[in-house]
């Protein structure tokens, strides 16, 4: 019989909140339930911080990485609820439809919390799979042609990806069994991985990397991620680009951590480098080609996920963890602001002549700061995380890849910068009139979450105290 401890209570409590949300028709009560859920996540984060590295409910354990990502999940989750309520109100969704969307949001965030705190590879898989199903409900919300196509592709490819990842877990199990290792928890695997047959470990790693890549949004299975972000609501795209990408990162990083004690370490680094560089190549190609602002943001996530893989492969683990957090904050801020932009101009074309800098200066400010963060320019924190990554890259065995990566990144800075420059300054009388009837004051207030997130990107990179840096270092420790 499983003890009713805090993680189980959080899971059960969130399930109860989701059920209540589903049956609630009053918007006020829906908001109260959302606040309760965020409070639950915040409480869970604080509790896990207090009981660091203690095993709970057999299969769960919060290490520094889990606590760090739970904090990020709580912050971005709160912003997503804020935008979700604005979104359903703006669209005039029926209370039933809004309720089911918010209920799916509760379940989605809870499943991701489960991924972060799992200490068993099977449980990571189970929570990730559950996150696919809840994400599908979120992407499907609009029931338009775009959202149906995106949901179909997402569910289908994720199901295949996650099945392949499970095959990887089974192969790992075969490798473990031959050495009498029957427990697939990360601690036991880390202790015994060096005893296992490297060829089974290689097959297992390839399967798991392929399967989990769909969650992290990197090569090989990144395509459906882009479509899901384009076809779903913007606050859902923000979550997919941030906290779901982190979940995929957690799965890949923990597996990498287990296998890093074995002889296949250098081989894994090479595989991760290939996937990382290919992700940046695809991102560059598509960003140059795309005419769609939302897809541009999605492709930029592909680029940053590629950088994170390169950071892991080069041994810049602190930079990898820092970058995945900073990107989560910056990209979710950009997607939230995109929602704002779309509400004003009802257009997601990159050649929209919005003259945004004048029509909505506060929103334009978010775009400016966001672009600086996405291009990893100072004073944004992403500059620091990429700097650390490239220091390790140049000092390590893959230094010869640096010129290619630098050229691609320079092209990306130019492409992203010029696209946003057009949005900010291009003027056309016919298109420059915003379609929203909201007062400027309300619109300005709504940019507050984005500024807070971007401030966090600046603070974490340049101004974070030693205690925070030590904690991130601790989280990145293999």
């Amino acid at each position, binding site marked *: 019989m499983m003890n009713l401890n805090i993680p189980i209570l959080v899971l059960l409590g969130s399930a109860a909140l989701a059920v209540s949300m589903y049956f609630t028709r009053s918007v006020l009560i829906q908001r109260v339930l959302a606040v309760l859920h965020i409070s639950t996540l915040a409480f869970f984060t604080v509790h896990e911080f207090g009981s660091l590295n203690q095993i709970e409910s*057999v*299969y769960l354990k919060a290490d520094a990485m889990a606590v760090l990502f739970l904090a990020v999940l709580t912050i971005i989750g709160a912003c997503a609820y804020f935008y979700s309520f604005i979104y359903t109100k703006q669209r005039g969704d029926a209370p039933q439809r809004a309720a089911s969307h918010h209920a799916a949001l509760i379940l989605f965030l809870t499943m991701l919390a489960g991924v972060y705190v799992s200490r*068993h590879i*099977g*449980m990571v*898989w*189970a929570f990730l*799979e*559950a996150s696919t*199903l809840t994400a*599908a409900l979120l992407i499907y919300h609009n*029931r338009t*042609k*775009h959202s*149906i*196509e*995106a*949901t*179909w*592709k997402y*569910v*289908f490819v994720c*199901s*295949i990806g*996650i*099945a*392949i990842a*499970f*095959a990887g877990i*089974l*192969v790992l*199990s*075969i490798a*473990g*069994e*031959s050495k009498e290792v*029957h427990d*697939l928890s990360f601690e036991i695997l880390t202790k015994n991985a060096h005893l296992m*047959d490297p*060829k*089974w470990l290689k097959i297992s790693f390839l399967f798991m990397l392929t399967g989990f890549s769909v969650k992290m949004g990197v090569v090989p299975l990144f395509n459906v991620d882009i*479509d899901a972000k*384009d*076809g779903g609501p913007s606050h859902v795209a923000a979550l997919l680009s941030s906290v779901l990408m982190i979940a995929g990162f957690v799965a890949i990083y923990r597996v990498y951590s287990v296998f890093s004690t074995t002889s296949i370490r250098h081989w894994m680094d090479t595989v991760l480098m290939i996937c990382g560089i290919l992700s940046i190549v695809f991102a560059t190609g*598509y960003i140059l*080609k*795309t*005419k*769609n602002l939302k*897809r541009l943001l999605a492709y930029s996530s592909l680029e940053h996920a590629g950088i994170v893989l390169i950071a892991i492969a080069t041994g810049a683990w602190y930079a990898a963890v820092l970058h995945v957090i900073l990107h989560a904050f910056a990209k979710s801020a950009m997607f939230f602001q995109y929602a704002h932009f779309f509400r004003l101009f009802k257009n997601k074309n990159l050649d929209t002549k919005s003259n945004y800098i004048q029509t909505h200066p506060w929103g334009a400010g978010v775009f400016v700061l966001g672009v600086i963060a996405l291009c990893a320019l100072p004073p944004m924190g992403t500059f620091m995380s990429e700097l650390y990554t490239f220091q390790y890259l140049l000092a390590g065995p893959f230094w010869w890849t640096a010129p290619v990566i630098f050229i691609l990144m320079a092209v990306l800075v130019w492409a992203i910068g010029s696209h946003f420059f057009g949005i900010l300054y291009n003027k056309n009388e016919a298109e420059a009139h915003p379609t929203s009837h909201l007062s400027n004051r309300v619109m300005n207030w709504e940019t507050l979450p984005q500024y807070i997130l971007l401030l966090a990107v600046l603070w974490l990179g340049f101004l974070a105290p030693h205690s925070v840096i030590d904690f991130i270092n601790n989280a990145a420790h293999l």
Partner: protein
Amino acid sequence: MISVMILLFVITLVYIAVSDRLVSMVRLLSLQGVLLFVVAILELHKVDALNFGFIIAETLLVKGVVLPYLLFRTIKKNKLERETNLTVSPILSLIIVSGFVFGSFLMGFTLHDHHIKVGYFTASVSALLTGLFIVVARQKIVTHVMGYLVLENGIFLLSLAVGNEMPLAVNTAILLDLLSSVLLLAFLVDAVGKTFKTTDVHELNELTD
């Protein structure tokens, strides 16, 4: 006896890959569910009541009855009969899937490990590859779902070959995953059919750059 069942399973794989009648494909999938049940019963001698329940639910009930029923319903509802515009001819499919079986056998033989039987390994890797082949080579959305199910069957077979038991939560997740994914996919096949007026994957191209 197990070898015979595994051989039958491999033969169904070849038939599924070659067949273009959707109803026959579903029948073969249902047969695979039953075969997996028999293999599981023969393989797992010391299985507790709970795990036994899971195996019956997953193989006989879900793979043998519920999923085929859902697929039949979807095929009927969307008035589908056979896979048209086959990009890979049946003969070529036969050669490719036979190649998968042969390759998997060679791979199992080369990786020789006394903890995994070559028969299981060959059948499960062949099913994995055949599932992916069906997804890549066929055009109907519902056929893609069937490809996914063939892949899932391969993974189930691989899990039988592995002695390590997964936590209860993982077993539950596998079962729920299979059921809910197919429910969701069947629902989406209908939704795509209604909205796009098509049952071909290649016509789902609204989301482009």
